[in-house]
């Protein structure tokens, strides 16, 4: 079973991706244009107001990985910053493990080459990008990314309200007075 990201580690990561109230993806620009790389090598989404320091990977690689994360588990209502948070652990691992860094860079380089001019992030249609992902989906690194996202994306309490999941219940007295049987349309 993929490892559980402890609450402490998750909070640390989220603190490094500065928060705004936006939950939805607000930018009208394509991901490629919405996320820029600063002079200091960080990723910046000005309209959603988050920034991400990139530690182990090339900033462009990390930017592409965030888009890959969205393409693996696309939710139009979920803002880029949640995918960025979800992928942070790969950058951290790349910072301390050269083999991981090499595998991630190679994965992205391969997809960029296959995409042609503009690279993977330059392909405008999701279906084009997903077609490329399918060519690498049997690889161990793809599976590592995919299975990691199950926890790093969906086990984020800030993501839960987007889907209507209310999370912890006991401290609020359960649902006996909070709508456990409030369905009104059947």
């Amino acid at each position, binding site marked *: 079973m993929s490892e559980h990201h402890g609450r402490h580690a998750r909070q640390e990561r989220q603190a490094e991706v500065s928060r705004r109230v936006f939950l939805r993806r607000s930018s009208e620009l394509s991901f490629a244009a919405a996320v820029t790389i600063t002079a200091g090598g960080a990723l910046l989404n000005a309209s959603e107001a988050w920034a991400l320091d990139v530690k182990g990977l090339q900033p462009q690689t990390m930017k592409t990985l965030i888009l890959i994360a969205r393409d693996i*588990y696309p939710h139009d209502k979920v803002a880029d910053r949640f995918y960025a948070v979800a992928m942070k652990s790969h950058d951290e691992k790349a910072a301390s493990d050269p083999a991981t860094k090499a595998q991630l860079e190679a994965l992205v380089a391969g997809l960029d080459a296959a995409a042609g001019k503009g690279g993977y992030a330059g392909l405008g249609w999701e279906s084009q990008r997903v077609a490329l992902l399918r060519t690498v989906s049997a690889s161990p690194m793809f599976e590592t990314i995919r299975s990691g996202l199950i926890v790093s994306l*969906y086990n984020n309490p800030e993501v839960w309200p987007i889907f209507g999941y209310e999370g912890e219940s*006991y401290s609020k007295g359960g*649902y006996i007075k909070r709508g*456990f049987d409030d369905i009104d349309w059947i």
Partner: protein
Amino acid sequence: MAAATFNQNDDSVVVIIGSGAGGGTLGNELAQKGINVVVLEAGERHEYTDFINDEWASFTQLAWKDPRTTSGSWRVSRNFPTLPAWIVKAVGGSTTHWAGASLRFQEHEFRTASVYGRIPGANLLDWPVTLAELEPYYARAEEKMGVTRTGGRPGLPGSNNFKIMKAGADKLGYKECHTGNMAINSLERDGRNSCQQTGFCFQGCKWGAKWSTLYTEIPKGEATGKMEVRPQSHVARIEHDASGKVTGVVYFDKDGKEQRQKARVVAVAGNSIESPRLLLNSASSKFPDGLANSSGQVGRNYMRHMTGSVYAVFDRPVHMYRGTTMAGIIRDEGRHDTSRGFAGGYEMETLSLGLPFLAAFLDPGAWGREFTTAIDGYSNMAGMWLVGEDMPQETNRITLSDVKDQYGLAVADVHFDDHANDIAMRSHAYKQGAAVYDAVGATRTFPTPPYPSTHNLGTNRMSANPRDGVVNKYGQTHDIKNLFVSDGSQFTSGGAENPTLTIVTLAIRQAEYIADQMKTKAI
């Protein structure tokens, strides 16, 4: 009265391995009869106030994560190769995690060989005990556990998820749909709260409303001064003397040091993967195939129930995660009716997962828009679990793997292939589950594959003839008089019903037998 502690050299005690539905109940029942008991539990002791309303954090706290391997064609082996089962390593065993569904087996399910006839590939066998013999004990178990809709106890109220199931059941003409026979207090009872519809049943009930040996049998047993529960005591091996009588167990304590507890009687209740593993790992020169294994059936006939789930998305909110997870059932398909194309039957029970676990289990390995549009429907989603009788097969079995655990002991490999009867039943059940939801206007339904097994049965089964199984009608091993099995590995058939009530029932009866055998000095 202070809790008992017994000397490790005290060979007058009954040693019970495991503190769940079987071990915890047996321990208390024996202690109430004045018999000294040491319960060795591999896991830690978390009190119910320690439970966590968070799926992954709770899994980390309670689930058995010691290594196991898997083999066979079942999908669990492909998607979760090291996690064949979602069960518990903690005081209280899987009664901390279970959903509370408490159904009696049906009469014919104790006689599957006679009733189903010969089914190629199925190692069917009649239990050496009948429903009639168990009925008084079922009644005592229901009373002990406070099962709703028995003994005058009212049913739990219906949640949104149940209301959808009921509306669909009514439209399809199903006749037996209600909020279940649940070992969850609908009213305060036995010094415990009533259900607050919290929706984290699988993560342990923080109100204590759901029955668990952790805060019922165990403290009651401890209060007699005759029962000691030792957590973080991982039994490695059962020892015997030259005559073949068991004499005690070797276990690893919380510091990883080997300890020995002597015993007059040993009862194995580690659930259906660890119990046969322990018997196999206890092989000796006198018993080269493992303890109690003259039949060769130790570890075999592993059953996990035909399971699967159906989730459905509607165009309006449901909030299925609110409320008692499994308080909803349709029983009509539980009958044995071969006109449907298979032997045995299945129950349809409400189920919900939180967002994190739904993402993990809805379609393991899947990605892309087909998957994410399903998840997008989360707050408009209803769900049910299909639990039915799977066929015992000799090749579905627990064996010792080449992999070793932290103590250098061979870990269990769980091999499973579906039987054709299981596949036919599951296919029918998926269709019927979807039909229930379609009848209420579902816009989309999903058949969900079986999860890592929460019901694990059959691997030390009861038999009349020692050739066919491991234990007799009292769970006493055929080969060794003072060695017993007290968990669901005793089951000769899986039935269509959730197993816990039957495990508790057998433990109550087994305690009487053990007490009698000890009194007459037969053991």
